[in-house]
């Protein structure tokens, strides 16, 4: 129900813990913050903080991303849903079931929580909300739409499916356990029935970019290391420069927020696999084993772009080829079974965060028009969202700065 409050149990048991988590979030640490009831989860990422978790925080192994359309015209009902979502997210990210839980309530009524995450660790679950351009056509929000939130232009080679594109808002759920991520989206969708409906969603596995350079660089489905020079969660200067919206950039409600570009990129896996190793490495601009740039020995050696073919992916995507344009990536591999032609329906679900889409993703993607990799990939889904600042404390809620106009 729209009036669903954070459960009594939550209020009694977790008010204090919520504050503790908020404090931990300010430090940016991965906290093991819970004590007390249930089996003590060992892997929780703070939900509260200046920025939303799930952007600069360490990238987890799994993704369930969902884009929603708004169905209600009732602003109060929509705001209440955002509050209900926040309360549910606050509980789920600390390993707790939604509301009164998954069992033990009235036998005649369905439980508040669907139950499949009971007994599982929080698994570093992060839930991140974003607002699409179309949301600002509703609820009288037109004036609040940020200039930086542009609809993406048509890029060369795009073959976008409108049923996998756009949306009024999105939730990015990342966790180390796919069941935890799926549970989170499922329960939020349930709370949202009548107010929002899922427009499209995507499951992802095998992170393809990391925000923790000390960890091994993950590989994408082409077998190449991906995201070697991604922005790390500890690089506060680069995050400030490229990711977080500052007070000067505004609008006020977006300060400490970011902008998300999500692209479903299909890979022509079978033809790629028939491509010679030399050609694969030439196309990417790095070797397949070590991940070293062309002419260099080690993965983290500074690339010498001119040694690469002018059409190499790394060369074209590098900040030096794009007037310094830099984005933070959190992509995941996906496989949605097999298409009707017996080919793996697989690729990369690309997620990029930046402080302005016009100076982030757009110039980089434009520059990739001549990328020889385009022969093996196709962009088939696309969406862009304004990702508001973090939920500060237990009284705060997702989207408050937008809907109340108070930063």
């Amino acid at each position, binding site marked *: 129900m*729209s009036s669903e409050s954070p459960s009594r149990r939550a209020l009694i048991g977790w008010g204090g813990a919520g504050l503790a988590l908020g404090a931990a979030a300010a430090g940016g640490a991965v906290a093991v913050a819970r004590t007390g009831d249930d089996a003590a989860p060992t892997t929780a990422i703070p939900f509260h903080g200046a920025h939303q978790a799930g952007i600069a925080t360490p990238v987890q192994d799994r993704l369930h991303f969902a884009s929603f359309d708004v169905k209600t015209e009732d602003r109060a009902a929509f705001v209440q849903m955002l509050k209900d979502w926040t309360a549910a997210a606050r509980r789920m990210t600390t390993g707790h079931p939604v509301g009164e839980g998954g069992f033990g309530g*009235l036998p*005649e*009524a*369905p439980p508040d929580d669907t139950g499949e995450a009971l007994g599982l660790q929080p698994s570093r679950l992060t839930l991140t909300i974003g607002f699409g351009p179309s949301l600002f056509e509703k609820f009288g929000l037109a004036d609040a739409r940020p200039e930086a939130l542009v609809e993406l232009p048509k890029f060369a080679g795009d073959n976008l499916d409108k049923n996998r594109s756009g949306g009024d808002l999105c939730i990015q759920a990342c966790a180390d356990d796919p069941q935890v991520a799926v549970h989170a989206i499922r329960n939020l969708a*349930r709370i949202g*029935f*009548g107010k929002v409906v899922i427009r499209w969603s995507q499951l992802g596995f095998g992170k393809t970019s990391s925000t923790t350079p000390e960890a091994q660089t993950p590989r994408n489905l082409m077998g190449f290391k991906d995201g070697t020079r991604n922005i790390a969660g500890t690089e506060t200067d680069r995050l400030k420069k490229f990711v977080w919206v500052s007070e000067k950039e505004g609008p006020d409600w977006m300060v400490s927020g970011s902008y998300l570009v999500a692209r479903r990129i299909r890979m022509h896996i079978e033809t790629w696999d028939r491509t010679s190793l030399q050609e694969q490495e030439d196309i990417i601009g790095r070797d397949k084993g070590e991940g070293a740039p062309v002419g260099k020995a080690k993965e983290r050696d500074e690339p010498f772009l001119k040694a690469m073919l002018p059409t190499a992916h790394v060369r074209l995507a590098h900040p030096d080829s794009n007037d310094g344009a830099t984005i933070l990536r959190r992509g995941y591999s996906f496989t949605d079974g097999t298409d009707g032609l017996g080919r793996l329906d697989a690729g990369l679900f690309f997620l990029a965060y930046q402080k302005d889409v016009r100076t982030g993703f757009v110039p980089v993607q434009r520059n990739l028009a001549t990328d020889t990799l385009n022969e093996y990939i196709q962009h088939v889904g696309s969406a862009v969202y304004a990702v508001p600042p973090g939920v500060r404390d237990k009284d705060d809620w997702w989207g408050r700065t937008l809907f109340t106009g108070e930063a």
Partner: protein
Amino acid sequence: MRPVRLSAVAAIAAALTAVTGCTEKGDGGDGVVNVTATDDKCEVSTKEFPAGHVELAIENKGSKVTEVYILFPDDRVVTERENIGPGTKQRVTAEVKAGDYQIACKPGMKGDGIRQNVKATGDGAAAKRDPRLDKAVAAYRQYAQQQADETLPLAETFAKAVKDGDIEAAKKAYAPSRIGWERTEPVAESFGDIDPKVDVREDGLEDGQKWTGWHRLEKSLWQDKKITAEDKTLADQLITDLKDWQNRVGKAEITPTSMANGAKELLDEVATGKVTGEEERYSHTDLVDFKANVEGAEKSYALLKTVAKENDPALTTELDKQFAALDTLLDKYREDTTSYDFTSYDKVGDADRKELSDAVNALAEPLSKLAAAVVVK
């Protein structure tokens, strides 16, 4: 056929345990209540008797054939004896738990009858009941009975057309003959055995199970485009099975929570069968069933609303809104809001089906919370 729900099985089992209606001649057990029926009176020798084995010794001193019932407060039948002729005596026995009951005589075997309040006393007194909810259950039972009663003639029109070999007339009569059934389907399903005979779809059959009922005839009419001798037999069988349903509605286990969850189940029917076009895959009359399911759910809700509103006003506000939204949406698919001529479902595109599905979800989710709002104080 849908799998028989566990809840339905449990409800039937509970009903059998609680009360075993039987009609053998009484053996002089612990309680005999003399009932004297006339054309305008229904006298009982005692208004209180011990719970357990109870025997009614009935004498009809009137001029009309009568019938006598023991009823639960919500009008469910504990036991009954029909066709008691003028000047005759009958005995009927039942196992009765402690609690309040009514004994009803129905001269002419019509109407609500002449009623007497009685009480079975003893250990294990029945839980305290909200009389408003008893009233709601009684009214819903009456609704379910009325739907069954009104369905029979419509089904007979359909069956007659089939037996006459008149394909066009049968097609025309098909969807209307199902409306009453679809409005109250959870009640019929609670019996377990009627639904698989009258409303099973081809994909619901088990190996060796004979396909009978509406959908078998639907396939003959729309897909095979002919009526066989077998179909004519099936038409008779359908009427027999529907009469069985009509006769058993009064004994269905209905509670406030089963009404609430039954309303949700009707929406589940819509979500899984009608929105996809699976239910009426040959006739494409899915939207008629859809509308009937929603109407049946709305009836349950309307009867429970007073109590639910007291316990959870936000829920009833939301349900009012979502019922109205779904009704408005459905009205887009008929020209005349008093008729059941809906757009053929094969003409409803994917985007419109998604819109219908969204509206069903928007209603069904809060509706799943109605049962809790009825039991919580």
